[in-house]
C-alpha cells in the first residue's frame, strides 16, 4: 500500500514539473532569466506538501479519517488551517491590490472578512461540533427528514463549492500566467493535479497540513514585506502614511479617479483623499448587501463548517476560531502596508499596467523591495511570493473539492442511495476517493471552459448563497424548536434561487448594449486624452513624462479593449437572458435574499409541521448546548 502511494505521488509530482517546465512560456512578471528561481521555489514547496501527503496517506483508513482527519486536529492547528482555507488568492493578492488602487476603500473591504468569524464563533462552530459528523447536511439531517435534508443539503454544498471553485480555478490560472507566463490551461491542470494528489491520497489529514503550511508561508511572506516597507519609517504609522499621501504617483492616481473635481485640489489634498472613503465603493446599499453576505455567509460555507468536525471537542472548535481570527485579522492589517507600500514604491499605474485588477501589487512590491526587476534578490522575492500565491490557490481548492466530494459520497451515495450507515468503511473511503476524482475533473474542466470569463463576482455569489440558504437553515435547525423539514427545504430552495436569480439579472452579467456604449465613450474621448498625454510627454519634468508614459500605455490598453468589445458584441444587444440592462440594480443580492431565506424557513416550518423534527428537538438542543455524547459521535 505504501509503495503504491509513493509511486503515485512521485508520478503526480513529476507530471506537474514536466508540464510546467516543458511548456511554451509567455511573458510573465518574472523575467525569463530568473524563471528557474521561481520553479526552484515552487519545487521546494510542492515537495514539502507532497511529503506531508505521503505521511498522511498512511493514516487515512476510515471515512472519518478521510473527511475529518479522525477528529484528531488540535484547536491551534485548526486555526491555522481555517486561515489557510479562507485566505484565498483574492484576499492575498486582491485586497492588497484594491488598497494600492483605491486606498481606504480597499482596506474597509477587508474588515467584513474578519467580522464574519464572530458569527461563526458565537452561534455556529461549537453547536456544529457537538452534533455534526462530516458534512453540513449531517447537521440538518439530525432532526429533520434525513433523505430530504441530504438531497437539498448536498445540492447546496455542491452549488456553493462549485461557484467558489470556479472563481479559484479561473483566478488561479490567470494569476499563474501573469506571474510566470505558463499557459493558462497548463496552470489550471497543474493546480488540479496537485490538489487531487493531496485530497485523493491524504484526505482531510493532508488537506489540513497543506493549508497550515500555506498559511504559515503566507504570513511569513507578508511579515517580511511589511518589515521592509515599514522599517525605514522607524515603524511609525503616521510617518509611513505621510510618505504615501505625499507621493506624486498616488496623487496622480487619485486625480485620474476623481476626474473633473480634482482640478481644484492641491497635490496634498489629492494625496490625502487616498486615505478617505468613496474612491471604489459608489453604492452604500450595495456595500451593506455585500457585508451581510460576508458576515452571515462565512458561517454557511461548507468547506469552513467542515473544519469544525476535525477537532475533538467544542472547546477546541472555539479555540480554533479564535486563532483563525487572530491570524486572518493580523493578515488583513498587514495588507494595509502591502497595499499602501505598493502604491508608494511601485505606483498604482505601474501595477495596473501588469494586471488591471491590481492583483500584482504584492508580487511587484516584493520585487521592488528585493532590489528591482534586474536584481537577484528582487527576483527571488518575487519568485517566493508567486510560489506562495500558487500554494494559496491549491490549498483553497483542495478544501473546496473535499467539501463537494464529501457531499456526493457521504450524503448522496451513502446517505441517500444506501439509506444510511450500512456501507462498509473501506467502501465509504473508496466512494469518497471516486467523488474526489469526479469533482477534481469537473474543476479542471470548468476552469478551462471558463477561460477569459469574468468570474470575480462568483466568490461573492458563493457567499450570498451560503448566507441566504445554508445559514438560515443551520441556524434555525439549531436554535428554533418549530423548525422542520418543510422549512429547511423551502429555505434552501428560496435562498439559493433568489441569490442566483438576482445575480443573473444584476449588473454582474454582461449587457452588450451597455458595454458597447461604454466602449464608444472611450473611443470618443481618446483624441483629447492623447493630446494631453503628448503634451506631458514633451514636458521637461521627468516625473511628469514618466507618468505620462504609463498613462499612454493604459490609454492604449483601454482603446484596444474598447475595440475588442465593439467587435465581440457586434450585432448583439442583450444579455444571455435577453435583457438590455440589469433588472436588479445591486451587484450583491444579500440584502434581499438573506431576509427572504429566513422567511422561507419560518413559513415552511409553520406550514409543514414535522413530528420527527419536533420529537428530536430536546435532543438536538441539549446536545448542541452541552456536548453530551459529542465525544462518542466524534470517535464513531
Amino acid at each position, binding site marked *: 500500500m505504501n509503495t503504491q502511494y509513493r509511486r503515485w505521488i512521485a508520478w503526480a509530482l513529476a507530471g506537474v514539473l514536466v508540464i510546467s517546465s516543458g511548456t511554451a512560456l509567455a511573458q510573465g512578471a518574472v523575467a525569463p532569466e530568473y524563471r528557474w528561481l521561481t520553479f526552484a521555489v515552487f519545487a521546494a514547496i510542492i515537495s514539502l506538501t507532497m511529503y506531508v501527503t505521503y505521511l498522511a496517506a498512511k493514516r487515512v483508513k476510515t471515512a472519518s479519517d478521510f473527511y475529518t482527519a479522525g477528529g484528531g486536529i488540535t484547536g491551534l492547528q485548526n486555526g491555522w488551517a481555517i486561515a489557510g482555507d479562507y485566505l484565498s488568492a483574492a484576499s492575498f493578492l486582491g485586497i492588497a491590490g484594491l488598497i494600492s488602487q483605491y486606498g481606504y476603500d480597499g482596506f474597509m473591504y477587508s474588515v467584513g472578512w474578519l467580522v464574519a*468569524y464572530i458569527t461563526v464563533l458565537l452561534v455556529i462552530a461549537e453547536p456544529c461540533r457537538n452534533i455534526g459528523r462530516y458534512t453540513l447536511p449531517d447537521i440538518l439531517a439530525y432532526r429533520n427528514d434525513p433523505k430530504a435534508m441530504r438531497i437539498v443539503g448536498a445540492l447546496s454544498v455542491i452549488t456553493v463549492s462549485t461557484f467558489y471553485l470556479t472563481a479559484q480555478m479561473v483566478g488561479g490560472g490567470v494569476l499563474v500566467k501573469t506571474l510566470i507566463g505558463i499557459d493558462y490551461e497548463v496552470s489550471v491542470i497543474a493546480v488540479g493535479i496537485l490538489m487531487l494528489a493531496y485530497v485523493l491520497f491524504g484526505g482531510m489529514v493532508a488537506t489540513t497540513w497543506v493549508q497550515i503550511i500555506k498559511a504559515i508561508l503566507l504570513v511569513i511572506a507578508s511579515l517580511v514585506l511589511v518589515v521592509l516597507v515599514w522599517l525605514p519609517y522607524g515603524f511609525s504609522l503616521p510617518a509611513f*502614511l505621510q510618505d504615501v499621501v505625499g507621493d506624486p504617483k498616488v496623487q496622480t492616481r487619485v486625480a485620474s479617479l476623481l476626474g473633473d473635481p480634482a482640478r481644484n485640489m492641491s497635490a496634498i489634498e489629492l494625496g490625502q483623499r487616498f486615505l478617505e*472613503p468613496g474612491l471604489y465603493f459608489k453604492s452604500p446599499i450595495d456595500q451593506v448587501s455585500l*457585508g451581510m453576505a460576508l458576515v452571515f455567509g462565512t458561517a454557511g460555507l461548507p468547506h469552513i463548517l467542515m473544519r469544525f468536525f476535525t477537532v475533538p471537542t467544542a472547546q477546541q472548535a472555539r479555540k480554533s476560531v479564535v486563532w483563525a*481570527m487572530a491570524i486572518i485579522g493580523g493578515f488583513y492589517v498587514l495588507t494595509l502596508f502591502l497595499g499602501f507600500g505598493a502604491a508608494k514604491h511601485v505606483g498604482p499605474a505601474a501595477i495596473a499596467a501588469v494586471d488591471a485588477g491590481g492583483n500584482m501589487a504584492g508580487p511587484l512590491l516584493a520585487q521592488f523591495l528585493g532590489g528591482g526587476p534586474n536584481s537577484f534578490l528582487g527576483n527571488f522575492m518575487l519568485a517566493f511570493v508567486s510560489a506562495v500565491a500558487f500554494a494559496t490557490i491549491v490549498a483553497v481548492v483542495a478544501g473546496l473539492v473535499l467539501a463537494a466530494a464529501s457531499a456526493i459520497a457521504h450524503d448522496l451515495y451513502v446517505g441517500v442511495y444506501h439509506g444510511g450507515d450500512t456501507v462498509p468503511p473501506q467502501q465509504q473511503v473508496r466512494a469518497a476517493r471516486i467523488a474526489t476524482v469526479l469533482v477534481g475533473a469537473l474543476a479542471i474542466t470548468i476552469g478551462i471552459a471558463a477561460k477569459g470569463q469574468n468570474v470575480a463576482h462568483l466568490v461573492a455569489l458563493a457567499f450570498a448563497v451560503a448566507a441566504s440558504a445554508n445559514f438560515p437553515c443551520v441556524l434555525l435547525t439549531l436554535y428554533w424548536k418549530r423548525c422542520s423539514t418543510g422549512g429547511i427545504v423551502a429555505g434552501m430552495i428560496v435562498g439559493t434561487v433568489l441569490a442566483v436569480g438576482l445575480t443573473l439579472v444584476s449588473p454582474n452579467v454582461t449587457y452588450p448594449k451597455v458595454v458597447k456604449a461604454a466602449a464608444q465613450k472611450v473611443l470618443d474621448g481618446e483624441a483629447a486624452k492623447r493630446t494631453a498625454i503628448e503634451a506631458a510627454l514633451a514636458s521637461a519634468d521627468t516625473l511628469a513624462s514618466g507618468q505620462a508614459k504609463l498613462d499612454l500605455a493604459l490609454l492604449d490598453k483601454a482603446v484596444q479593449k474598447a475595440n475588442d468589445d465593439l467587435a465581440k458584441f457586434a450585432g448583439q444587444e442583450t444579455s444571455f437572458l435577453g435583457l438590455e440592462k440589469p433588472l436588479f440594480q445591486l451587484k450583491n443580492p444579500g440584502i434581499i435574499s438573506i431576509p427572504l431565506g429566513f422567511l422561507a424557513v419560518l413559513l415552511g416550518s409553520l406550514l409543514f409541521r414535522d413530528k420527527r423534527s419536533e420529537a428530536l428537538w430536546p435532543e438536538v438542543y*441539549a*446536545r448542541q*448546548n452541552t456536548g453530551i455524547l459529542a465525544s462518542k459521535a466524534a470517535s464513531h
Partner: protein
Amino acid sequence: MASPPTIDWDAVIADPRFQELHRKKQTFLTTLMIISVVFYFLLPIGAAYFQDLYRVKVWGVINFGLLFALTQFIVAWGIAYFYSWRANRDFDRMARELAAHYEKKAG
C-alpha cells in the same frame, strides 16, 4: 442517527441547571452578536453618509475613518476574547457538569 435511548433528553432540557446555562448563554450571545453586527455596519454606512467625519485628521495624516477601520479589528478580537473568557470560565463548567451527570446516568 438517533443516539441511544438511554438519555432522557426531555429531562436534560427541563433540568434547572440546563435552563440556567441556556438563559445565560442566550442573553450573552445575543447581546454580543447584536453589538458586533451594529458596530460593523456603522463602518460602511458611516463611510457613505458621514464622509466629513471620516476626513477629520486625528494623528498626522491618519484620519478618523482609518482609525475607525482599525478599531473594527480591535473590537472583533476583543469580542472573540471576551466570549472565550466567559465560555471557558462559566459555560464549559456548566456544560461539563450536565454532560457528566447524564452520561453517567445513561451508563
